[in-house]
């Protein structure tokens, strides 16, 4: 019982530390503050289940919560069976639902909501491919480390570095063109 109380205290601190980021990440994908709040609560609930059963291996809580949130977001779209928000996807078959990736989801609403598009760099960011937007936001706006992004996106750290490099190149091209 005492142990459970201690777990709750630790988990409460984790919530205080990461809830804002997870909310932002969710909001950027679901475009609705209410749904984003629901996703935050689901993410932390699921996180708790893993935390109490497997605390020893919770070596990177930040990436852990991002990873759960990412799965929740994919589930959300699977459940809603919504393709409208998927840029470049006209398919409505089961396979397209099964292969939803957070990197395919547009963040246009979020960028406006967050006021990002009011700045030249933000405007350029919002014009990038969704995949580039996601990785640059995680790396530089949210300040996640390469290993954290690798865990979050289920990718190899080397592939993450390459993707960041490419996304930065694309952003640089856009900014230079607009100057």
């Amino acid at each position: 019982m005492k142990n459970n109380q201690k777990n709750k205290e630790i988990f409460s601190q984790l919530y205080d530390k990461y809830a804002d980021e997870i909310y932002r990440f969710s909001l950027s994908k679901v475009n609705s503050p209410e749904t984003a709040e629901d996703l935050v609560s689901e993410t932390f609930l699921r996180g708790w289940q893993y935390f109490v059963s497997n605390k020893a291996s919770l070596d990177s809580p930040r990436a852990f919560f991002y990873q759960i949130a990412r799965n929740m977001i994919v589930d959300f779209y699977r459940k809603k069976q919504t393709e409208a928000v998927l840029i470049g996807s006209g398919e409505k078959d089961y396979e397209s639902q099964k292969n939803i990736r957070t990197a395919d989801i547009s963040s246009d609403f979020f960028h406006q909501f967050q006021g990002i598009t009011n700045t030249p760099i933000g405007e350029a960011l919002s014009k990038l491919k969704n995949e580039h937007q996601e990785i640059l936001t995680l790396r530089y706006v949210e300040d996640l480390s390469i290993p954290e992004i690798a865990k979050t996106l289920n990718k190899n750290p080397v592939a993450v570095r390459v993707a960041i490099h490419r996304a930065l190149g694309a952003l640089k091209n856009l900014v230079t063109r607009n100057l």
Partner: protein
Amino acid sequence: MNNRDLIKQLKSLPKVRFSDDRKFFIKEKVFNQIERQSQEFYPVLENKIRFFDLFLKAKVAATTFVAIIFVASSIGTIAAMGAVRGSLPGDIFYPVKIGIEKTQVGLSQDKENKVKLQTEFVLRRLEELEALSIDSQTHQPQEKVVEAVNNFKNEVSGVKKSLSQLNSPKSKQVQDAFDEKVADKVGRRLAEIEKKINILTSVTEKTDDKKLEELSEKAKESFDEAKNSFMNEDLGGAIEKLVISDGIIQELVIASGSDELIK
């Protein structure tokens, strides 16, 4: 403009935050749910098969009758019923056990109770897997483990199907309870295997034995895959990889010539 300038500008972009009251509200919601989950108890046995149910679903009732007669006539004792309950994949009574479970699920009138029963059976499949893992130390045929893993996967798909058909106000609660019970059990198994791997890693690091190092690496890889499947909510995949990881660990213990390793 160089990359450094770009990065500097990206870092200075505005960030949306939870308002303090919303953040607090969601936190309260999460912790209330955690509290509720820890107090929840599944009285699965309350879902008793009523005698009159037999008349309501004739087909299933017939199966039950046959199963009961088969068990009663071939064994005839309560102890034998225990043998049916404790049977494992590959055992002679195992199909009877599965038949009885299917009948119980089929007879369940209430959808929520049906999920509760199915959840209980998913947990049984996990227990069977654990028992088989232990037996595999004494050269249990591999097929039984494969069958047990498939049974577990099938039970999980069955529950997921039933959950998707639930639309009562309590359905969320039932889903949460399933997630908590099964995910908790799989999570504990993950923790056990991870503990073993950590001990093995520290032991194999001190040796120059390439075979031990190789096996240790394989066990770790399977464990990582299991963990990944678990994080992606693929419980069947997680269990499959855990069984492999556990098998390799046992092989490692044998290869090292000492069973003291795991203690």
